[in-house]
């Protein structure tokens, strides 16, 4: 038996977070702190890379004591809520950042895909960017030459390949970027949430490509919030919670444990002030999925009414935008819903927008919910870029009042509205 492709033992990584600085409240105090600030700034900046004490309130462990092995050719999913350490783990394995403790051994040529389109330069043409991006991802010029036509046709941008990327629609740029990444041929591949790009058709295509990759005996570590994709691609999964590996096993068991909500992150997602997503004057503070009693839920029945609430802070007066939620299941988009009008939020403050999902709309299965906030007049400008935030497991208790009636076998579809059937005897 050959050695495992990835062998991780006792891996730990800590970061220093910025503590709120104490503000002086007198003029003399301000002057004194201004004079001493170079020294304290220097200590603070130097402290970013020095850890004399490994405990303390300003140190957070993004990964603690993580150990696992991945055999050659295995496709392993990594799940967990935001901030559980999934991305940090991939960054350490990719060599982007060093661990604080522990050790990992990688056996094989490794390539990481933490973000599509890294290094894309808007002034350069599509063709030039393919070469540049390919080289950044570790391909040689010869390899890119050989795959160039495949990449371009996969991205469906043949006509625009010699146009600067700044003239591309955002969808085209993302498709081209993914196409480059999808044609890498490393022995070990680290993939972080990159399937959430493009429209539904392109996502299906990406997922298909990922399945091909997985089928070719490549070793893949796959991070995603899309449980359907994880279930489909991976045979085994790891669940991270607050930097620790808390569950390891067959994918369905691990995703079920995650969705059961005992590890948080389901039902609601909140961000710290510093980490909250958003730009241009809007900050997303939290997203909750609740039942009609207002309790956060990770599991629901098809007959439940669900409320998806986005809480956000508006920092500038007079912003006009709308919220959007897109629900994914079975590796495809089930539906998208937007606020019908771009309402003006006249005054800064904290607002919330709630989407009501009526009973008997969703089918059984796991849904992954992506939210975004944008304004659109011709071109979309995002305040909060689309991101997967929550997961919900929907079940049908088969009480006979759902769209199934008393039918208990397999029923296809990503939605299951309760529709009326009329039976008539014609003759």
């Amino acid at each position, binding site marked *: 038996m*050959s*050695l495992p*492709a990835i062998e991780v033992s006792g891996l730990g990584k800590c*970061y220093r977070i910025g503590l709120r600085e104490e503000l002086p409240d007198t003029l003399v105090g301000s002057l004194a702190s201004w004079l001493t600030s170079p020294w304290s700034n*220097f200590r603070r*900046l*130097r402290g*970013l*890379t020095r850890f004399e004490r490994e405990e303390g309130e300003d140190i957070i462990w993004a990964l603690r004591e993580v150990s696992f092995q991945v055999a*050659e050719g295995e496709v392993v999913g990594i799940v967990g809520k935001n901030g559980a350490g999934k991305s940090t783990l991939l*960054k*350490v*394995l*990719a*060599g*982007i*950042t*060093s*661990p*604080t*403790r*522990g*050790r*990992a*051994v*990688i*056996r*094989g*040529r*490794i390539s*990481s895909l*933490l*973000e599509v389109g*890294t*290094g894309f*330069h808007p*002034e*350069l043409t599509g063709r*030039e960017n393919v*070469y*540049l991006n390919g*080289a*950044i*991802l*570790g*391909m*040689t*010029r010869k390899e890119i030459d050989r795959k160039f036509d495949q990449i371009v046709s996969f991205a469906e941008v043949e006509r625009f390949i010699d146009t600067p990327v700044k003239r591309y629609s955002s969808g085209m740029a993302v498709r081209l970027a993914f196409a480059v990444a999808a044609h890498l041929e490393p*022995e070990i591949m680290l993939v972080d949430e990159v399937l959430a790009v493009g429209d539904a058709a392109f996502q299906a295509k990406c997922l298909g490509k990922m399945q091909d990759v997985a089928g070719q005996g490549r070793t893949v570590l796959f991070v995603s919030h899309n449980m359907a994709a994880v279930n489909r691609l991976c045979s085994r999964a790891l669940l991270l919670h607050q930097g620790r590996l808390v569950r390891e096993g067959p994918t369905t068991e691990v995703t079920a444990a995650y969705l059961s909500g005992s590890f948080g992150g389901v039902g609601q997602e909140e961000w710290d002030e510093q980490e909250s997503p958003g730009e241009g004057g809007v900050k997303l503070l939290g997203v909750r999925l609740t039942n009609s009693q207002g309790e956060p839920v990770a599991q629901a029945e098809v007959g439940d009414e669900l409320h998806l609430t986005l809480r956000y802070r508006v920092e500038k007066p007079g912003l006009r935008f709308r919220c959007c939620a897109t629900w994914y299941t079975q590796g495809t988009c089930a539906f998208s819903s937007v606020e019908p009008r771009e309402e003006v939020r006249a005054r800064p403050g904290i607002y919330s927008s709630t989407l009501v999902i009526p009973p008997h709309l969703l089918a059984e299965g796991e849904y992954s919910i992506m939210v975004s906030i944008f304004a659109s007049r011709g071109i979309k400008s995002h305040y909060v870029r689309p991101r997967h935030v929550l997961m919900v497991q929907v079940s049908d208790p088969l009480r006979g009042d759902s769209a199934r009636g008393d039918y208990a076998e397999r029923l296809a579809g990503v939605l299951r509205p309760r529709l009326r059937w009329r039976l008539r005897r014609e003759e």
Partner: protein
Amino acid sequence: MKETYHKVIEPPRGWGRINWAELWHYRDLFYFMVWRQLKALYKQTVLGFTWAVINPFFQMVVFSVVFGRLARIPSDGIPYPIFTYTALLPWTYFAGSLTTAADSLTTTAPIFTKVYFPRLIIPVTPLLAKLVDFALAFTVLGGLMVWYRVVPSWQVVFLPLLVLLMVLTALGLSLWLSALGLQYRDVRFGVPFLTQVMMYAAPVVWPVSLVPEKYRLLYGLYPMAGVIEGFRAALLGRGTMPWDLIAVGGASALVLAVGGLLFFARRERFFADVA
């Protein structure tokens, strides 16, 4: 599975090291990064690469009027415009590549925090890209040589050696400044000031013959002194190669570059955390 791809990831301990084999594997990326910088630099400009010539040219005009005409700074009997332009050739390269390289890690942070590749490529890219500007600026020198009827001596064969010393000096400083500049953004504000001081410290507007003989070797520790005086000896056909300055300057540039490489390799392991 080939053992050549065996990679062990461990917490940083002691000094880092430069992985030369890996740099060789990424040689195409070197090429594309340089090419990206060249392509993107003059996009959407009217004059394009002409800018590479305009900058030193107008600097020469200004210096000739201010220092040559008004201040009457001696120029070893060489017409002042060509005297200072010969110095501006290596100087413009040095200052330009240093300024870009010092900032390079900060501006490339969005890339190297997402993908792994040898980070050494980042500060070295501007050093290579600016060589194109440097070569273009030679065209003006050609014009000046015809105008002032100056013919290079046989010592012009040493020019490649001087160019090498020029690049080595820029490399050494760039490695230090870029690695420091990522963690301490003060570097970004300090570099323009630093290059200005270094320009007046270098024999760009004045000849080394103004330096008292007993301080000559000490002054030579500044590698650009040897480079600039060497350029004059090689291209203007007067005087002999200042081998003393070049030897002393070469040694100090080497120390600077090796120290820079060690420092860079040591800091590299934290780049993604401080960016």
